[in-house]
């Protein structure tokens, strides 16, 4: 990798030297060892503005502040809910982070064990993860469908500033919430719409490392819709 590189992305393995030289800064997933910047994990190395970082390609989900996640109510305490968001430690949603005042005797009525919720991560420190549902689009999920994908592929499903997920929303007419922890909530007018959106997401994650995905998904929708039309024509 040189400074005027065009190809600045490559797969690195732990202990591999990504770049050497004093003019680079070690970012996430990297370590500085003497003059070299060394990968501290397996992933895709990327360099921008002399900052070198390694993007995860696989592995478990680690929550970060600001992440929108989908989780399941696992337990109820005297002042909130314990939510399983698929990370190493369970997350906590306090009653004070609920949009309205909740009396301590109605906690269970508001959200009970087994309910699925959309929440935002307030902060993730070593062992405690705090959530909030005090924002638009957050809260309990009452209908729709939830599918699970690898959390490392979430950025591809969302696309650059939401471009990919917006295409799926437009093409299928579904309401979609993508949790950073790999759970995706779909709600369409019919089950067919939801299944089409599910199929589209599967298409994306199967090709998560290829380029030009937005164009590919548009093409795929055209083909898929033709097929559906044809099938409908046959039935009649």
């Amino acid at each position, binding site marked *: 990798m040189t400074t005027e590189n065009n190809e600045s*992305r*490559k*797969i690195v*393995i*732990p*202990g591999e030297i990504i770049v050497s030289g004093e003019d680079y800064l070690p970012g996430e*997933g990297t*370590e500085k060892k003497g003059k070299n910047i060394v990968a*501290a*994990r*397996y*992933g*895709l190395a990327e360099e921008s503005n002399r900052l070198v970082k390694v993007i*995860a*390609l*696989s*592995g*478990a989900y680690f929550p970060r502040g600001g992440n929108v996640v989908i989780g399941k109510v696992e337990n109820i305490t005297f002042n909130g809910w314990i939510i399983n968001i698929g990370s*190493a*430690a*369970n997350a906590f949603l306090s009653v004070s982070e609920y949009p309205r005042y909740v009396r301590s005797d109605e906690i269970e009525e508001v959200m009970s064990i087994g309910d699925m919720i959309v929440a935002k991560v307030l902060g993730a420190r*070593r*062992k405690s993860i705090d959530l909030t549902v005090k924002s638009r689009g957050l809260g309990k999920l009452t209908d729709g469908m939830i599918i699970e994908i690898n959390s*490392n592929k979430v950025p591809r499903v969302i*696309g*650059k500033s939401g471009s990919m997920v917006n295409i799926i929303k437009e093409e299928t007419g579904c309401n979609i919430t993508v949790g950073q922890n790999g759970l995706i909530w779909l709600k369409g007018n019919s089950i067919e719409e939801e299944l089409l959106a599910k199929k589209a997401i599967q298409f994306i994650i199967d090709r998560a*490392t*290829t*380029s*030009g*995905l*937005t*164009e590919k998904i548009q093409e795929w929708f055209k083909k898929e819709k033709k097929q559906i039309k044809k099938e409908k024509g046959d039935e009649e």
Partner: protein
Amino acid sequence: MAKEFKRLDGRKVNEIREMEAKVGIVPNADGSAMFRFGDTIAIAAVYGPKEMHPQHSQDPSTGVLRCTYNMLSFSVSERIRPGPSRRSSEISKITEWALKPIIDIEQFPGTVVDVHIQIVQADASTRCAGINAAALALAHAGIPMRDLVSSISIGKLDKQLVVDVNKLEEDWEEGEGATDIPFAFTSQGNEVSLMQLDGKISMKEYKEAVKLAHEAIKKVYEVQKKALKDSIKDIGGED
């Protein structure tokens, strides 16, 4: 020492059996890998970091690595009794010690990283294949690591040192009999993270064995590296 030592399977003394490595073979795991030395096949699956159970084993200052080595009952020609044994507990522990120095899980206190190693088919050097697979699976699971660990066994058949012993050689009975030394090294610093010795060996021969292991380990590392790099093809740009 004879110039041309004939090994039972026709290999040269410093020749490793055919190696194969593959990453991502267990879809449900956070990371997984397979490693093969000839007829010895090991698969490893990594889960975590996840909450440690039983709770009394939790360490509030750091994450814990927990390895389980198991030989499947059909892995050898005479069925072995399934379940933990003295041998498998020992290998689980030494695998843990071999991998511990390279992983960095201090940032996940109270959690555990579970590594499950299963020997699907055994033809000696199973602990080496297991460690190689486990190192790959840990990397694949995105665990922060300093380096990879590669492992190889060096044998002494009568008076001849050989690389990567198989079952027939392990049971060598002529002359001084067989000595089996499994080694594990980190790739770059060439730090030793595992060394066991089963049999008899002189200091001079031992030094020779370490030298042989150093050379062989490079080939193992290349196979591991290739498996990780090839697991993702066609890296495109973000669009």
